[in-house]
């Protein structure tokens, strides 16, 4: 969930940092502005960072701690750029602009990939969702259908068959849910 939130918000954070720092606001004040809210998990991270800074901890150490906490590449890169700005006084605005452009390209790509990958989900979902119940329904009515064929197949206990059918239905449901989970885990975070 954290990575999804990060990837959803990071581009907006870059744009905001770009505007703020491009108009002369310092890094700490820009972080403070974002920590006020509106950027989900990143606002929370920056808010914790500001709390620790106000307690007297150095910005560099806090940024390093945040770097370890970050899960997505984009967010890590942003924090790294901030860290470089603090330690080596690099041109943060230019770097952020380039990162924003790159991130936007990768977001477009990931949406295209998402749409392509989900192309097969309905077919797979329907294959499992249809074949499973068809087989299980025939199995469920088999003991009554084949009552006269006990000599051939041996006695079939309706209760036991129903237990197998119930387990089969639950497994089918689980399979459908697992396939559907792809729609959640691969979400590009728009």
């Amino acid at each position, binding site marked *: 969930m954290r990575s999804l939130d990060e990837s959803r918000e990071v*581009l*907006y954070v870059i*744009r*905001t940092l770009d*505007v*703020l720092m*491009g*108009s*002369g*606001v310092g890094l700490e004040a820009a972080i403070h*502005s974002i920590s006020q809210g*509106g950027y989900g998990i990143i606002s929370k991270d920056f808010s914790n960072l500001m709390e620790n800074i106000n307690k007297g901890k150095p910005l560099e150490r806090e940024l390093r701690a945040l770097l370890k906490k970050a899960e997505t590449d984009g967010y890590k890169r942003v924090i790294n750029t901030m860290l470089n700005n603090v330690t080596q006084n690099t041109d943060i605005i230019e770097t952020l602009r380039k990162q924003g452009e790159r991130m*936007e390209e990768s*977001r*477009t790509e990931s*949406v295209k990939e*998402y*749409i392509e990958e*989900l*192309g097969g*989900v*309905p077919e797979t*979902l*329907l294959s499992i*969702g*249809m074949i499973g*119940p*068809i087989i299980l*329904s*025939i199995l*469920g*009515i088999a003991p*009554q*259908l084949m009552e006269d064929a006990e000599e051939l197949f041996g006695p079939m206990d*309706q209760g036991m068959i*129903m237990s197998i*059918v*119930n387990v089969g*239905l639950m497994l*089918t*449901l689980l399979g*459908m*849910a697992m*396939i*559907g989970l792809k*729609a*959640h885990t691969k*979400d590009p975070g*728009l």
Partner: protein
Amino acid sequence: MIFGILEIFRNEPFLLFIITLGVACSIGGIPPIIERNRRRGIENDLPAMLEALSDSLGAGLGLQQAMMAEADRNTGTLGKLLRETLADAHSSSFDAALANFATKSRSSQVQRVMHLMSTAIEQDAPLQNILADMSRDYERLNDLMNRRESDLMGRSILIIMFVSIGLPFLIAFIVGLFAPREQGFQLESFNSSFTLFFGAASFVAISVSGRMLGRMRSALWWAPLWMAVSMSIYHVGVFVIGG
């Protein structure tokens, strides 16, 4: 036969509960759809508004004047909101009116844009360039969101139709044909298992299709209704086909 069909629901209290819940929840599911249409309408108009504001600023107009011109031009929900904002700006500060505009829009995109605009005004930043950049950014974002919607909508409807309608009908057909009730087949526990399965499968289908479109929470309002439809199709199907 109609009375016979109605009669079979009498012994299914859970199904009756799901039907009642489905009707109630589907009424709850309408406001999110209306709200989403309204919000997307505003968000789709946003890049054009930002571009127009940027152009007007480039021509030497002030932000408030540029917004007035845009409010006159735009006939959609965004234009209406802008007109209200500018009317409010007469009785309060322009900054407060912008914040009010962002709140009224109930859109995170508009709120972010207004926040950035306020910050840029406070910091005396080059607003024309910022607005032009934001216009490009949000145009691309909206294109992606619209593309996702149009590409995945058909697939999500396909999932719901097959799982909630096609599948219970097919199984009811098989069961009704091979093990008709009138021939004395005892299928109470079988039917009850499959009825519950179709309800659960419909819930999964609605969740997956909602997640595909990026709006699972509002899609879940419709889950009880589709569960009820799916379970009822199976029940009625077995009864009718099985004689």
